[in-house]
């Protein structure tokens, strides 16, 4: 296993809703190393999405330590957190979340533009990744002209094109049919094996759980099982 990418220590997250405290994470301890293909499963409300949001610096914990590549997220400003998301983390969402006014090509290119990568280099990378996800011939289409599976392929391309240290995928196969889900998993597995991209999924989908290297089971905000799987 490679170096440590994610470390969560005693992470507690409590939401306040109309004056009522709702605990989402109750002292989560988790370590993810480079190159892992890890799935976090658990029933609804177990805290899977909250855990991913906190690792991805989209949300902050109530208490506890969260480190990404050795950096304590609580020590970073909002702008530094935005920079870290841009440079080190890729996101794949259940609802794809492509930017509707941009074409497939521009969506895949988006993070590279934010990074200020030169045009020629950008074009080369985007074209290569679109070839890899099988979307090169649809690069000029807007999201509303693509199927759910095609949109998720673009979302995967967007997440990995900038070669992040970590890709966080929140139920990536939840909105697609089983055939498409299999092909998306093939694709992410391919990215993991060939590019060494670290994936952390939250999922209900048995297919994702079966194909992951490591399966974490989350219940009531704590990890109850940590299973290394041989395929």
């Amino acid at each position, binding site marked *: 296993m490679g170096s440590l990418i994610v470390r969560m220590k005693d992470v507690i997250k409590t939401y306040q809703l109309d004056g009522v405290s709702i605990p989402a994470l109750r002292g989560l301890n988790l370590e993810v190393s480079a190159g892992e293909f890890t799935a976090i499963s658990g029933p609804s409300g177990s805290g899977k999405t909250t855990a991913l*949001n906190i690792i*991805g610096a*989209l*949300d902050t914990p109530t208490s506890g330590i969260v480190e990404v590549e050795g950096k304590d997220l609580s020590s970073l400003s*909002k*702008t530094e957190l*935005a*920079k*870290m*998301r*841009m*440079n080190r983390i890729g*996101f794949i*969402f259940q609802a794809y*979340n492509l*930017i*509707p*006014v*941009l074409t497939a090509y*521009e969506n895949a290119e*988006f*993070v590279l*533009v*934010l990074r200020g990568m030169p045009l020629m280099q950008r074009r080369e990378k985007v074209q290569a990744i679109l070839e890899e996800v099988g979307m090169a011939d649809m690069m000029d289409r807007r999201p509303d002209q693509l199927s759910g599976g095609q949109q998720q392929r673009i979302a995967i391309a*967007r997440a990995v094109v900038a070669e992040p240290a970590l890709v966080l995928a929140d139920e990536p196969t939840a909105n697609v049919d089983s055939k498409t889900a299999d092909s998306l998993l093939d694709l992410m597995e391919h990215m993991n094996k060939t590019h060494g991209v670290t994936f952390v999924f939250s999922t209900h989908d048995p297919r994702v759980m079966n194909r992951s290297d490591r399966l974490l089971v989350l219940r009531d905000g704590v990890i109850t099982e940590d299973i290394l799987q041989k395929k």
Partner: protein
Amino acid sequence: MKIWRMAFRNILRMKRRSLITTLAMAFALGIMIVYSCLMDGLVHDMEKNATMLEMGHVQIHAPGYLESPSIYKRIEDPESLVASLQNAGFHASYRLFASGLAARGNASAGVQFRGVDPTLESDTTRLPHHLLEGKWLDEKEPKNVVLGKRLAQTLSAKVSDEIVVVSQASDGSIANELYIVAGILKSVGEIVDRSGLFMTVSAFRELMVMPEGSHEIVIAVPPEQELQDALPAIKKIAQGLDVKTWEQLNPALAEMINSADAFLIPLIVITYMAIAIVILNAMLMAVFERIHEYGVMKALGVGPFSVFRLVLIEAFIMTHGAAILGLATGVPLAFYLETHGIDLGIFAQGATISGVAIDLVWRSLVSVSSILMPLIFLYILVLLGTMYPAIKAARLKPVDAIHHH
């Protein structure tokens, strides 16, 4: 730049709303440009009428005459003073005043006799060309007089009618004479309209038994010269006499002309406030509709400032469109009104502001400042109107925004 492209496409997403917002801004700008040019035109006309019609830029009187006018407070040898002023490059004319009565048939009215040199007056003011009907005075026709507009109405006098005047001459004798109305003036100003009876200097001298002197010398400064620069030279020539600029002679009017911008700015601000609310509404709607999208962008690493910039750029692209449209309609219309004007003659026969006639054809005056000021104000108010939605978008928490539906 990607952000510009995104902003442009976001605008095109909601074509109708963007179009209405842009058209509202363009309409406000066009109207404000036209209004600003019309106001400038009005002020310019007032200043021109105030000075060039009758008052001149500078007037010279005998000391104390203005405070307490009297036929005996005279400028000695006005002819040589006028000649000196002309030699110094100014246009100048001298005038004589006296009061009396004029009658025609059963109608009579108090009048102010105004003795003028027809040629010098023609060279100095626009009065001789400001005739409603008839013709101006001629030195060769000393029995001709020209009447103010309302005086002619009071006396029911028309061109070629005879009128009788009576007064007390400077030697104490009764002055009375029969004259022929040669012309009637358009509206000049309150006093001239109501009581002005113009006659030649020689006729005045004969009627009032006043062989020499004058009560007023009116001076027009050439256009290329600033009044304040010309004043010392005039004062030097008219030593010992009372020299006053038109601004000192009619301070209310001068104040009004000087503060014309102060009247214009609140009107622009009020009009644009309505537009700023339209912008604010449109941009707030755009931001609320896209909260989820901003969340995604932030998740991908777009910083708060870039989101702020995106909202601002969207508003400014629309403002640029509105500016082009507003200028393309407002400026030609302002130029059209500079040539053709708006004819107010159907509403009134004549109008005065602060005792000075204004033209019944209201013409605009197109200048860089009267176009730039509404344009700059539009941009400032759009910036203010967009600030709140832009800050709101910039401050969204990615996790809340991304799960917002």
